[in-house]
């Protein structure tokens, strides 16, 4: 459990390491289009997770 706690913060930092890039971090099934994301979220009863970033 404690090892998990140690590893997890590093893991998301790695996931977010490409912030400032046009290419989203690898792994999650990212959408780039709001309408497509909204339709999928409504159909599946899920929230939308938005990750806003910009050019460095």
């Amino acid at each position, binding site marked *: 459990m404690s090892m998990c706690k140690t590893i997890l913060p590093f*893991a998301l930092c790695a996931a977010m390491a490409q912030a400032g890039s*046009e290419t989203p971090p690898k792994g999650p099934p990212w*959408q780039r289009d709001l*309408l497509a994301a*909204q339709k*999928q979220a*409504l159909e599946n009863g899920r929230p*939308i*997770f938005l990750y806003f*970033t910009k050019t460095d």
Partner: protein
Amino acid sequence: MLPNPAIQGAYDKVTWLYVYRDFSGNKKDRAAERISLRFGVTSWPQLFLVDPETFEIKKHTGRSVESFLAAVAATRVGRTQSLQAWERTKAAEERAIALERASSGKLARKYIDDEDIVVRNRALSLLAKTDRKAIVKRANELLQVPSDPFRYEVCKVLQETADPAAADALEAIVKRPQNSLNPNVLRIRAVQALSTCGDASSIEAIAPFAQSGVYFNGLTGVSVDALAAIAERHKKARRAVRAALKKGYPKPPSAGDARSMRACVGLAKRIHRAIGEKRPFPKVYDEKARAKLMK
């Protein structure tokens, strides 16, 4: 690097939307800007979960895996058979894109009170180019719209047009920037507008920020400049502005912090100029020099 076991379990718990802005103004960037406008995003990065039906922000996730997973676990949204919300967004996107392509104020006047915040933002931007009077006339009401980018634009128009009728609403924003994701920047924009719209009665709202001594916050210097501009335009305000600014000389940082010292002296000199102080600025800015200047 991902795929990462730590958050893989959340891949199918949310819909993932990546919004990247390069500020090029091209088609992709305008689409990303519309999403940013919808959620009032004006600083980066921002990570949050929203209800897909209402677009209400349910939780800011933070940037650690632990806070992210906790936010995902705590966020529930209802399943719906209806795509009405999606159809509303689609229609709003079409109106917003039409406004991006328009060059006259006619469409902007039609949509400035639209139900959709992105459409309102696009209408406002077009009015700012084509019919600033239409914004100035309704400034007090438009400053209440709970969208940071929208209010930034209204403030910019007011700064350029110097309409004193908007001063009360601007002062209210400076005192309490409600419904803002970025209250410091909203305050900066309102203070900049007051530098041309305000008068002696605006001093009370601006002075606490000019006197904060926080030399790494842009709001401090902007507030100093705004008070100086008000004093320049309103003779009756001069004595009160001078008294307010004298209290703003910042406390020198501890020895050895060169970066803070440069910023501190920069702010002190800015206040010195704003006051129109006849005494030369001291060669060494320390507690003793500060105390003398504040007298």
